């Protein structure tokens, strides 16, 4: 399930809108009213399991019921600081993901409330928090052209550029 995306930090969990089920998806796809709750698998916490579990109670009590809470998750080793309801613009097409999919982000390095921060670079154990995102849009950046001068050619070469963009919406961020 985890290897299909070949990315540490993201796990394709549910296809809410896809009727065809991928091999990566768990067998129990609920096609009724959404908010399926996938069980987090232990794959991601293989490195994190050696870390002693931090006590996040002060953080939780300070976060006003997970409303004043931010997280920094990593995707392709790039950190993204998010709160619930934020849009994350990824400058690439996330492999295997389609619009409407739910992602379980399981490589979180920092969790913070107004007064406390928990920071573990190897990743906070996944059972301490829940960070979910849904793929909201897969689109492109506006078209532009890049001109390059090649050797032994008197003309400028034109390269069209229209990179992909994946937009994630942070669905859920809470401490368990």
């Amino acid at each position, binding site marked *: 399930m985890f290897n299909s995306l070949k990315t540490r930090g993201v796990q394709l969990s549910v296809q809410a809108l896809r009727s065809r089920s991928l091999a990566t998806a768990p067998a129990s796809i609920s096609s*009724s*009213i*959404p*908010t399926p709750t996938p069980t987090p698998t232990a794959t991601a916490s293989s490195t994190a399991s050696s870390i002693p579990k931090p006590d996040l109670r002060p953080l*939780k009590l300070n976060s*006003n*019921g*997970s*409303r004043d809470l931010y997280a920094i998750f990593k995707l392709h080793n790039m950190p993204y600081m998010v709160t619930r309801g934020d849009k994350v613009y990824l400058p690439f097409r996330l492999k295997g993901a389609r619009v409407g999919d739910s992602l379980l982000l399981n490589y979180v390095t920092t969790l913070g409330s107004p007064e406390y921060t928990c920071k573990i670079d190897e990743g906070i154990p996944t059972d301490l928090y829940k960070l979910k995102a849904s793929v909201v849009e897969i689109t492109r950046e506006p078209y532009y052209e890049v001109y390059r001068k090649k050797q032994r050619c008197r003309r400028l070469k034109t390269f069209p550029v229209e990179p992909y963009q994946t937009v994630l919406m942070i669905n859920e961020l809470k*401490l368990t």
Partner: protein
Amino acid sequence: MLRRSIVRVSQVKPNLLTGICKPVLNTKNIITIINSSRSYSTKLSNYEVPVEAKYDNIQDYGSYKHNIFTHRLPESSASQSPPLVALHARLNLPSSYSLSTLSQALNLNRYDDGLANNFGLNVLGKNMLSYYVNEWLLIRYPRLPMPVHNVAVNALMGPQVMYEIGKQWGIEVDKSSKLDKFLSQESQFLKYGRLRFIEEESKYPDKPAETGIYELTNEEVKSLDKQNSTFISEEVNAYSSAVIAIIGGLYTHAGEEATKEFINNHILSRKLPLENMFEFSQPTRELVRLCDKLQFEDPIDIRLIAETGRLSAHAIYVAGVFCGVEKLGEGVGSSLAEARTRAVINSLMGYYLYSPIDNEGNEVKLPSDEEYKFDGIIGPGDIAI
């Protein structure tokens, strides 16, 4: 699963043909086409059902019978309407939610080939929606003043918001007239998946529309807010009614749990800008009264915490509101008065926007949740100045 509709052969302007179509379309859903110059001023609104009921005994309410016969769209016809099937899938509705109910929720017309309209579903949906929205607001923000609470309810389930939601759901309006549909050989099933609120007679305009002029209907005049010169248009009303009716339909087919989840997902998941909804006229006086009401023993004291210096290029002051040793709030301003007012408002907001959490630090449960045990607070009510 390919859904096909036939090509629009031609775009015929219906207003050019009204003269021809008068005798042809003499069906009962067209009330009048002749003399339709001000027809909307006399027509009944969509829901105003005339008293046409029959009864055996005036006091025996069980014997009341309507003489308007409506029927529901057969499921077989509804399932042939591609926009309806798509809407069902888009909203992720359970399979128990029948397509005919969804089609009914989109119908506001009184006479639509004898099909039932969404009046009942709308009433049901409105009850469900207002219950869950109010419950959520009252438990999550127990100290919200009444006027702000009302505005917050409107911000979550008012017509304008419901219209936005309806648009986002991709509901389309059935704008073309019968004649237009006939001429373009449009499939008759298409309209069952569209929002039907324009009555057939208004689809044949007797004069070309003038740009920059919008004539209000009676309903729209009633909703006119003279201060801001805004009104709720018929379209907004129709979208709102349809969205609420879809929620009502969900309750009839899938029960309360599913409805609650649906409302949570679609309506309560929106961001509510509560902190921008307050307008204080006399904040300091209000704070003093509030502290009296809360029986704070120490007097309120507004003090300067820090400043950049009176003679600095852009002086900044930090003021704090204190009650004994407790700091209630803090404000930054470019003058002493501004900093003071900001500090007072900050402390008032801290009080009004308080949201309780339980012992473990989770959000408190709502009365409709399982294993509900009251552990929030009850607000002491509004204060009078």
